[in-house]
């Protein structure tokens, strides 16, 4: 496999504010994300990622008014936005199209319920009915037990992750939650599942995000600061973790597989020093903790110490989720993957608000976007860079 490295470039990216947009529907959010792309590039084809805010390409078609273009709606759990990017990039790389749009949207807050809700597919009634919070809460005791981490150290590390992401989000005008939260506030929040408090959980928001991709050689026709795609990887697991006794809930095999693939495509050998930043899928605080190890940033069983040392803080040696992450930016399911890409776009181009602009001299960033649950997961990884 030759992979996708340096074949495709991102020449525009956008992201709406995420939040409880009671006054705006899916159409409005899509319209804003498209308008804010601010590019002359005219897409030949479109990929729309949404988990359950619309069926078929017409969901986007009726917003942009195209009557003669291919629009494909894709869905891959919470990685639906990343899936749109992946499909658009491969379509351009194939030469079939010159310009393609990837766009993701979710109108979560029309459901009337707290949290995310799976669209019910008729079934035999024997599947687990737990919330995502409960499924990810299983990681905490498993990790603490395997590595001999005390309850206090575990709580401190998880609270640090949430507090860090709240702090980053407070500097982000598009974020759903823009309040600093102390680790004490986070630790004292009401319990949702297991030892997970409500402030360990990502915000649930409405929003949309988009990007335009072209072949790498065409990139500078549209912008003098394109981002080049170095790797795209996607893994859908078999769901075996739920029924495999060897799975111990301290790592995510699907993430490890997608990361290995992505690092191979991009030629990354020392991930801890390779990236200016990484956006990772912090749906719950233990998820971000485990991802630090799955992504090769920390050795197994040590991420909690590095979290506490501040290594992943905004101005640590590897900033994680400088935009606030799912935790405080919010999580409109189909938009999240492209929201992660949008932060890479801002940071690597030096266009992030000054209060959260990081040192981008390493010139590489990654997004890690997952869907599903421990044992039953899909995982996407992208790596983007400022030069070929």
């Amino acid at each position, binding site marked *: 496999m030759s992979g996708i490295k340096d074949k495709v470039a991102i020449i525009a990216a956008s992201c709406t504010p995420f939040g409880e947009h009671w006054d705006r529907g899916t159409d409005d959010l899509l319209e804003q994300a498209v308008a804010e792309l601010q590019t002359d590039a005219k897409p030949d084809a479109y990929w729309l990622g949404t988990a359950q805010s619309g069926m078929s390409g017409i969901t986007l078609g009726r917003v942009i008014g195209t009557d003669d273009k291919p629009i494909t709606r894709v869905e891959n759990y919470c990685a639906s936005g990343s899936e749109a990017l992946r499909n658009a990039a491969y379509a351009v790389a194939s030469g079939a199209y010159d310009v393609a749009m990837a766009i993701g949207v979710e109108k979560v807050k029309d459901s009337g319920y707290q949290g995310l809700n799976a669209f019910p597919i*008729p079934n*035999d009634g024997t599947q687990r*009915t*737990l919330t995502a919070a*409960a499924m990810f809460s299983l990681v905490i005791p498993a990790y603490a037990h395997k590595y001999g981490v005390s309850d206090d150290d575990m709580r401190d590390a998880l609270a640090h992750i949430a507090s860090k992401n709240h702090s980053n989000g407070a500097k982000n005008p598009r974020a759903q939650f823009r309040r600093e939260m102390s680790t004490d506030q986070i630790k004292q929040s009401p319990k949702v599942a297991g030892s997970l408090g409500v402030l360990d959980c990502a915000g649930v928001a409405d929003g949309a995000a988009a990007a335009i991709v072209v072949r790498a050689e065409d990139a500078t026709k549209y912008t003098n600061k394109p981002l080049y795609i170095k790797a795209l990887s996607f893994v859908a697991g078999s769901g075996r973790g739920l029924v495999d006794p060897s799975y111990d809930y301290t790592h995510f095999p699907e993430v490890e597989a997608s990361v290995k693939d992505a690092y191979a495509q991009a030629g990354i050998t020392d991930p801890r020093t390779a990236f200016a930043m990484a956006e990772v899928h912090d749906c719950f605080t233990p998820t971000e903790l485990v991802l630090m190890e799955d992504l090769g940033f920390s050795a197994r069983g040590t991420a909690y110490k590095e979290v506490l040392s501040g290594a992943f803080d905004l101005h640590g040696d590897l900033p994680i989720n400088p935009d606030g992450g799912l935790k405080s930016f919010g999580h409109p399911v189909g938009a999240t993957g492209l929201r992660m890409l949008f932060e890479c776009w801002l940071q690597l181009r030096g266009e992030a608000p000054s209060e959260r602009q990081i040192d981008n001299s390493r010139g590489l960033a990654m997004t890690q976007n997952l869907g599903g649950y421990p044992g039953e997961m899909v995982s996407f990884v992208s790596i983007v860079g400022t030069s070929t």
Partner: protein
Amino acid sequence: MPRGIVASAGYVPYRRLQRTAIRDVMAAGGGKGTRSVAGFDEDTTTMAVEACRQLELTNGPDALWFSTAEPAYLDKTNANAIHTALRLDESVTAFDFGGAIRSGIGALKSVLDGNGTTLVVASDMRTGLPGSADESNGGDAAAAMVVGDGDVVATYLGGASATKEFLERWRTPGSKRSKTWEDRFGEAMYAPLAEHAWNAALKAADVTDVDVLCVAGMHQRSVSRVAKRLGVAKTIDLGGTVGDTGTAHAMLLLAAALEEATPDETIALVSLADGADVLVFKSVRRAAPKRTVRQHIDAAQDVTYARFLSWRGMITPEPPNRPEPARVSAPAAERATEHKFAFDGMADTCGTIATFTVDRLAYSPSPPIVFAIVDFPDGTRAPLELTDVDPEALHVGDEVEMTFRKLSTADGIHNYFWKAKPVR
């Protein structure tokens, strides 16, 4: 070959309501002792499965007869779910005897008077309006017996019935409560019926003395009077712990008697329900189900009165603000029958908890959901909801056993599946 009870067992659910808790809230009703309370995820069908699972069903029955006055479904045969959970052969018939409390003793007597090998199971959940005598005196339980010829634990010596139409207790379909006529009227009706049936049964059984007496009946005053008048030294009475379990009660008392019996005891079972039925047995050896009625009674945990009322639909607590489950797909459930109803033959295997969590957000008829990843000795693993459990007392590595439960009900469809509960 002697005909009689080949095997017997009872099932009493884990929860108890302290009767004093009723008076604390209602300033009326209550009394002494406890009554048994089916979990929010139990119904008469699931309790019947649990009772049958206490039996060693080595020689498969030809038929399964299920009696209850509180059927989970009308029109649809509830015995089929029991049949499938027990993995009985397709050639084994399954019939419901529904509606009247008398259908429990009726099924047992019919089978004893008939032929072949039949698994008879009776189950009931008794309730009443808050503060009522029915609420306090009632109980929830199931009992199961294999009736056949040959190697019996108790030989059936004979029996008799007396039947008469009178209005003592009634309930219209769908009603949460039963109604009764003035107490003394029932006493006047039952006393002569009991006497006629008793005399006829002793004659049919060709016995004059009885060693152990079981009297079942929802009319407490008549039950007490009959028990006293018959003058048998030893009586089996579960009223102080389990309560009166209606359709199941005659068989539950008999199961308890057979588990305490020594050889050659004469045991008489009297049921007062729209008449009187008397069955007389001679014990051969002590019945030995996997778990005895006494063990069920002793392994118990109190439930608060508020939770009891919510489980019975008498009060409606605010549910989690989450979507309720969708109805089960009939074809999908049918394709998964072996897994859904029989747990792939693993229902009698214990597992250990690999990890667990408490979900305070997910929808449940009685939140929160306690959920565990359970590993089984054959190297398989299953994600399972736990029940009859105190999450504070739960640990990784705890042993759990399987229990047949109702996960939820949507569009009138009961979603039956297996849960795990701590081994006690």
